[in-house]
């Protein structure tokens, strides 16, 4: 019995509760260490480096260069253009596909899901080179089109924006489908029946009920795809033929060719900040949507 309190066991139970708290904190410790070692410290260093000029002193030259140089502005425009286009195309292809899968029986939906995920298990490099082989001037697709008489001159599918988009959409599609499909699966099918029984045509039911209910999944998917696209390197490097230069490629050039860690870090910081802003805005949008206050 506790002498300072007249309530039995109060102190002991309080201590028991706080001990449980420490135990749970202890469980997160390995992850915390990992985050600090692999994310917090490197990102901090990244910020620091971005303010170091070529002569080794503190300076803003790395950021000045970005808005003064035409090439840097062009690279940012390209990065965002490619990311936005990839995201839109992924949505245009992924949304109907997810819907189709969500309407199948579990068994067939799982088979479809495996088909969607197979590309995930294949090396990104392999898939990108496979597209190069298929899409090039004398590649399979152009050969078929020419032999079938549909075209006379080979189409330029690759070494340009088109090729980059094809490759990136292929890689990004599962990232859009996964959250969207899960979202669609979780929707009460009776909601659509209800809309229909209340007089909504299938089109009307889609726009007024189904689409709003899938917005959280769609936004999550779009966000993942867009953010991943911003940092893309391999696919635009191979399928863009040197004509599609994205930020990550410039970062690599800055390090490999110019040893300019400052300029590379500044680009990284800008990408990181932009991504952070997008995530912040999107998280507001998604949570608002889930609250139903639109």
């Amino acid at each position, binding site marked *: 019995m506790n002498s300072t309190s007249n309530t039995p066991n109060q102190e002991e139970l309080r201590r028991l509760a706080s001990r449980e708290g420490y135990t749970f904190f202890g469980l997160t410790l390995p992850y915390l260490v990992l985050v600090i070692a*692999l*994310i917090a*410290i*490197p*990102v901090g*260093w*990244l910020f620091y480096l971005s303010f170091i000029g070529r002569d080794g002193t503190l300076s803003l030259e790395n950021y000045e260069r970005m808005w003064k*140089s*035409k*090439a840097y502005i*062009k*690279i940012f425009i*390209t990065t965002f253009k490619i990311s936005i286009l990839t995201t839109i195309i992924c949505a245009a292809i992924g949304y109907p596909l997810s819907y189709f899968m969500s309407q199948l029986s579990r068994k067939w939906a799982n088979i479809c899901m495996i088909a969607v995920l197979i590309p995930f298990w294949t090396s990104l490099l392999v898939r990108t080179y496979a597209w190069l082989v298929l899409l*090039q*001037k*004398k*590649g399979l697709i152009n050969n078929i089109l020419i032999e079938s008489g549909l075209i006379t001159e080979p189409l*330029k599918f690759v*070494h340009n924006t088109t090729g980059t988009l094809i490759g990136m959409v292929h890689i990004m599609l599962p990232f859009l489908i996964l959250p969207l499909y899960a979202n669609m699966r979780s929707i009460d099918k009776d909601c659509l029946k209800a809309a229909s029984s209340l007089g909504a045509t299938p089109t009307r039911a889609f726009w007024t009920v189904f689409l709003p209910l899938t917005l959280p999944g769609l936004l999550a998917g779009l966000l993942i795809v867009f*953010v991943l696209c*911003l*940092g*893309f*390197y391999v696919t635009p*490097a191979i399928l863009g*033929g*040197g*004509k599609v*230069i994205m930020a*990550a490629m410039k*970062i690599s*050039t800055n*390090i*490999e*060719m*110019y*040893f300019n860690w400052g300029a*590379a*870090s500044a*680009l*990284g910081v800008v*990408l*990181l900040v932009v*991504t952070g802003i997008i995530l912040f805005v999107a998280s507001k949008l998604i949570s608002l949507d889930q609250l139903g206050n639109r």
Partner: protein
Amino acid sequence: MKLGIKTAGLLAAAGLALSSASAFADELRIVSWGGAYQKGQSIGIFQPAAKAMGITVKEDTYGGISDVKLQVRSGADKFDIFSSGAGSCASGAAEGLLEKLDYSVIDVSNHLPGMYSDYCAGADIFSVVAAFNTDTFGENGPRSWADFYDVDKFPGTRAMRNRVDAQLETALLADGVPMDQVYDVLDSEEGIERALDKIRSIKPHIAVWWSSGAMHAQLMKDGEVDMTTGWNGRFDVAKEDGAKVSYDWRTGIMDWEGYGIPKGVKNKDLAMKYIAEMMKPEYMAEFAKYITYGPTNGKVYELGLMDDARARQMPSHPDNAQHQLTLKTAWYSKWRTYADEMYQEMMTE
């Protein structure tokens, strides 16, 4: 996020490298570019030379002079010798990343003129040439840089490198600058701009900016472009594989590859001796059997270590060399960073 991960990875690698055990006293680690090139080096030079000295040499590939910088700046200890182009070596030396080579140990007395520097011992000679598709043009393809830039006379798609190296020279040669004045003209911002403008004039016809030797060889093999700048050895290998590709030595810009030692390696003395061994003509002759990159050591020809037919395929053969411009490494250590930035801007415009 890609950059974050990449940077973190590099940092982690650097950290691990700090603690890793250094090499044994009779072991050296050498890095090169992989592929057909390193295969030739390994069979022809690296392993026979190691065997002759009774030491172990471990090979790996690397990503270029930036890896040397990473090793030196982070105090890591991952390799003792690297194989590198003369230009990159020169810029690495300018940053103070390299050990000065001891030419009392390394014998370069028989090297062809200019084929070694204080920090880089020349090992093979290659050329940047204008290759063209013989399906498109027959044998009457672009045989000079003027032809390469003449889109009316030679219509078709072109490819150039996504780096400045040996590209500006082609523009000035096409613009009518005599060979011996090319680097004088390039020795100013205006001269560089003149070369870039010339490239701009054919930019709509440049379908691809290539990033590696494997890539430009493949572009020609697949007929993806009708002509490209690139390394002669890769085209020769592609041709042996049946690619419809040809080039003229008159478009050649001769450059050389050599060995350097990163600053601060523990096995510096052994590395120096090993480089000295690798400079022997018999190794260079053996290497040249695998890829058409010529020896820097003149003894190879004097001793008749290479048959005449093979010798004639080398960029450095007098018959071929006489038509070519020799790449000036001094210009690269002075201008490369600036010129490449301008070149990148031109590409992205």
